[in-house]
């Protein structure tokens, strides 16, 4: 259960220019890079963008080790894609595709490394504010995100239990019996969480009467 930091530890406290940059600008950077990865057709342009972003990341003071750690999980998959594309479509296209994915990863890392989770949630809640007229409730939206984040360690723990019991008992025995407890306990956990929220007066729709 203590693996809470697993996904969210990326934030590095600091006071760099990037830390102080407004959240919307950083959001825009991430979205912009996502768009760019569709539009950039030349691998050299991708490489330049990639270099710029890496520079920006290092400017935040988070350090090259952290940059490497952010990129590392993607590398095996990217390597496979890269080799396949090289074989299929040649080196320039392969380089472009791989670099464009890396551009997005680094851009997202710049955002998460320089923004605390609470600020991210507040940002998401304010992003959702314009949708209020369609019946959205930004507070409940942010709350749901917070619950999801806190549930990931629980769910990961439950999956680990399955893996362990699969090792102990063998996968060839009834797979349903193996995974069913994960889902039963997960639903029970979800309802417990919902009840706890309700008891604290959180998460219920605003003024159900009107």
């Amino acid at each position, binding site marked *: *259960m*203590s693996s*809470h*930091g697993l996904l969210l530890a990326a934030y590095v406290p600091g006071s760099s220019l990037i830390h102080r940059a407004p959240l919307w600008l950083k959001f825009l950077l991430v979205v912009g890079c996502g768009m760019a990865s569709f539009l950039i057709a030349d691998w050299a342009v991708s490489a330049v963008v990639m270099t710029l972003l890496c520079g920006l990341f290092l400017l935040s003071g988070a350090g090259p080790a952290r940059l490497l750690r952010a990129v590392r999980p993607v590398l095996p998959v990217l390597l496979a894609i890269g080799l396949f594309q090289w074989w299929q479509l040649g080196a320039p296209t392969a380089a472009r595709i791989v670099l464009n994915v890396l551009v997005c990863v680094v851009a997202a890392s710049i955002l998460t490394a320089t923004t605390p989770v*609470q600020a991210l949630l507040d940002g998401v809640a304010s992003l959702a504010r314009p949708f209020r007229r369609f019946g959205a409730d930004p*507070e409940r939206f942010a*709350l749901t995100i*917070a*619950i999801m*984040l*806190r549930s990931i*360690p629980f769910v990961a723990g439950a999956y680990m239990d399955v893996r362990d019991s699969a090792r102990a008992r063998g996968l060839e025995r009834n797979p349903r019996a193996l995974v069913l407890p994960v889902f039963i306990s997960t639903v*029970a*956990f979800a*309802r*417990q*969480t919902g*009840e*706890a*929220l*309700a*008891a*604290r*007066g*959180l998460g*219920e729709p605003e*003024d*159900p009467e009107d």
Partner: protein
Amino acid sequence: MLDRVTVRVSVDGRPAPKTLLEELSLNLTERRIGVIGANGSGKSTLLRLLNGLVPPSDGTVRVDGADTVRAVREVRRRVGFVFTDPLSQLVMPTGREDVELSLRRSIRNAAARRAHAESVLDRFGLLPLADQSIYELSGGERQLLALAAVLAVDPQVLVLDEPSTLLDLRNRELLRRTLAGLRQQVILSTHDLELARDMDRVLVVDDGKVVFDGRAAAAVAHYRDLSAAGLPAPGGGPAGSGLGGLGGELAVPEQAGGRPERAGLEKA
């Protein structure tokens, strides 16, 4: 103050609807009220009625005039609820964030909210642990934090569902002292007979019925007899016959029902 509880609770189950709590009518006005009974007896259902977590099938529950179905938001502002397992209640990764979450509706300004959260944590001696992961706290610290997060919004009534079940002796003592010092009305269910003895009034619940209602000492004695009845005594004869006080001591209530207390939650 709960001025009127007149209810029956049943759920639409299969094959037949199941009654969790028989018809009852109560005025809960004492400052410290305990509810004791075996697992699955209806304790949890009774407590969950008090802040609208369980709606009554018949009748009404009112907190200072506010109906728990029609004015559920108002009722939940007035009645704080603490669960047995603080981990099911604490929503945020750290204590500070969890208390701030409680305050989100009442204090809009972030700085004011932060300041108030710190004063609440400080009152319970939790300020040094404010930024620690809730998973790294001890069971007692977690239960105290859950209590702090609920009391942060200053409810009039505090309902606790077996608050000491997961605590060791030392933390139970800490909880008892904390509860004794609260100015709120306290209504709790417990298997901890020592905690029950601190109460001004104790209800004994058995099989969905309130079977005893009165002073703590008498209620605990009644509950002991009830738990012992029907259990085979160690000697073979019926419990209580010729074993004196010992038979009562042996009838550990936690083992009588068999099912964990979560049962109440799931049925509800």
